């Protein structure tokens, strides 16, 4: 450590910010810029909604097979542009001390690491074992296991029960069975109401591109055996049944 050069002391910059590139100052953004930005933002919002609608139209009405990622890629690209505009102009990162931009980028870097490394792990489990794709004999609750803790609160005062009995199979199966039992409707009537509730049009029989996607190896290979039947696009006119787990 060298003895400090006291000559370097600048009373106008007592903390030596200049050497770091930090500077003071208040930038007054012009009204014209702000108005332009808000107009662009509104336009981009319309664009992203429009793109999504067009995509839905093409898949459901025209029957086009668009790649799964396209919809997400368009929506997220537009969102990134919008977010950048707000950050740069409304939040004035463009005009301010670059330190704030550095903080923001650091934060994005941490976010990217978090998402990236976690996703990398979650997406690459069990690629080593062929047997995981086979039939599982015992254990492996999967998402389809009933949850004994449906009675979710217990203390000395008493029990608050949100779903009355223990149920078997996934929660949604239980709810469906309960609904049919309570209303006494037929299976067909249930499916009709189901399609209505899920905004599924009779003449398409598809929900969206995601439904036609292959069954994914998700967080757990074990789930694959209980995965939904993803093939009902082929059923043509048929009413789509609610997805049934193959197991149990």
């Amino acid at each position, binding site marked *: *450590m*060298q*003895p*400090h050069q*006291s000559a*370097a*002391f600048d*009373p106008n910059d*007592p*903390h*030596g910010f200049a*050497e*770091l590139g*930090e500077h003071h100052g208040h930038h007054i953004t012009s009204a014209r810029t702000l108005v332009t930005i808000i107009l662009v933002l509104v336009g981009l919002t319309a664009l992203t909604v429009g793109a999504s609608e067009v995509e839905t139209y093409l898949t459901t009405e025209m029957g086009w097979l668009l790649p799964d990622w396209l919809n997400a890629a368009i929506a997220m690209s537009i969102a990134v542009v919008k977010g950048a505009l707000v950050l740069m102009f409304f939040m004035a990162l463009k005009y301010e001390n670059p*330190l704030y931009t550095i903080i923001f980028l*650091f*934060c994005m870097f*941490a976010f990217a*690491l*978090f998402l990236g*490394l*976690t996703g*990398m*792990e*979650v997406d*690459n*489990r*069990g*690629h*080593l074992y062929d047997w995981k794709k086979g039939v599982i004999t015992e254990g492996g*609750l*999967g*998402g389809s*296991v*009933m*949850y*004994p*803790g449906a009675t*979710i*609160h*217990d*203390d000395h005062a008493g029990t608050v029960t949100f779903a009355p009995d223990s149920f078997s199979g*996934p*929660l949604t199966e239980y709810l469906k069975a309960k609904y049919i039992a309570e209303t006494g409707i037929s299976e067909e009537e249930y499916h009709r109401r189901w399609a209505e509730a899920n905004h599924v049009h009779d003449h398409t029989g598809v929900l969206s591109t995601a439904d036609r996607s292959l069954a994914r190896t998700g*967080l*757990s290979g074990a*789930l694959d055996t209980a995965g939904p039947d993803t093939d009902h696009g082929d059923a043509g006119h048929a009413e789509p049944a609610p997805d049934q787990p193959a197991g149990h």
Partner: protein
Amino acid sequence: MTTIPTPHDHGHHEGSYLTPPKGGFFAAVIQWATTVDHKKLGVMYTVAVLSLFMVGGLAALLVRVELWEPTRVVLNEAGEAVTTGQFFQLGKTPAENYTWYNRFFTIHGAIMVFLVIVPGVPATLGNFLLPLMLGAKDVAFPRLNLLSWYIYCTGALFAILSLINTGVDTGWTFYAPYSSSHAANTYNNVVLMTTAAFILGFSSILTGLNFIVTIHKLRCPGMGWFDMPLFVWAMYATSIIQVLATPVIGITLLLLIFERIFHVGIFDPAMGGDPVLFQHFFWFYSHPVVYVMILPGMGIASEMIAVHARKPIFGYRAIAFASLGIAGVGFLVWGHHMFTAMGELASTIFSALTFFVAIPTAVKVFNWIATLYKGSIAFNTPMLYALTFLFLFSIGGLTGLPLATLATDMHLHDSYFVVAHFHYVMMGGTIIAFIGGLHHWWPKITGKMYTEWVGMTGCIMVFIGFNVTFFTQFFLGTQGMPRRYASYIDEFQTLHQISTVGSMILGAGMFVQLGNFLHSIVAGKKAPPNPWGGLSLEWYADSPPSEHNFHHEPILTHGPYDYEDVYPPHCDPADFPLPEPLPAGAKHH
């Protein structure tokens, strides 16, 4: 150092920050409870952290004593179930004993991590010293600092409530789905304890944020980035981690609370969630936070070694950048807590990344030891603690290597080897440095000297007790003793008993130190402003410092470690002679 008058200069008239206000006890309580003075807050944090350290330490001792004998249930001749292992059991029946054991190690872990080690150094010594070392009057946001203290108190309150309400038995890591649906009899307490950790996170964030701004904006005139003491660099790196990592634990614990109450299915496999995702969330914070724990300890060690060896620290920039490097790489390696749970690709990548964090750490140790070379090394309690730190932290760091190595970690993971390793780092590193730092700055904080021989005795007891306790556990771990076991097979009993004896010595050493501190407050000699001959700015202030730290705003004229060229302030130059000046034109380096 020279000084310049400032618009708010208070001159020579004010008393020390410890001077009680007029109006008696009540006024003093009000003054301390509403203070925005970083020094008072630092002292209050110190009291709180040390008290909670005692609670956590007592829980640890209970855990160790319970492990003196393995718990057994056998049928006696009458066919009744009886418990063996009567030496000391936490509960009457075996089932109760297990339950209480699990609660006690959870109490120990949760208190030590969330309430003691994480806020430990930054909130106590950091709060007290950072503005002093920077030559500032206070931290950048004093009222935020006070808020942060009250948030800490609220968090501590929640944690204590959960303990009074029979405690939590999930372990401090709150792994789902055990914590979210299976934790026995502790329904409300898991929520209370996670809420406590959630709240404490905000205290941590606000302190870190405050320190970053203080370091950026409140360095005294003449102080460039590389004129800051290394403790400040360590605090800077720590604060970056606190700000960037803590929010993630916030959302994790929030989701865990939702999971616990509503079973939302994000971490609970019964609803389709993924328990390993919880571990990712958890360790994304909790691994970087390991560096929140150790970096300040490293900073303290740098200060103590330089002052007591009277040497410019070797490789100042290397240590400063190593602090930032550790903070950065610390974000890349959380997966090494999950080698036994992750996919193969991820384990491999995380293992490789983990080795990178060893490099800056090793560089620091080399630099500290090189600093001793040709020094003038004082032999007193802080220096003894610094050497203890180097010894224990080296063991802690080196035993991290087999844990980063995949093949060996698959054996050692979740065993006593891990327990021993992180105690060597967390306790042998952070806590030892913290206690050493308390001795080092005790004269500055309280204006009183502690008793030197008692301090040395305590340090030696702690050193011996610590090694007996935890070195044994390396052998336990490699031989197959899993952690968090209330009972064990008979083969491990001898080692467990040695470890328990060690923990008693360790505990006794801690009480010796505590007694020494208390004694010094009551009957200690008055401390001079600069008992060790330190050069950083806090030694220019009075002991204890005046209310606004310095009587005039300081201007820095020398680096913090120019021991070869500058006589320390407030000292007799004859006591701290300088080496021959360099011949004209000779270069320093």
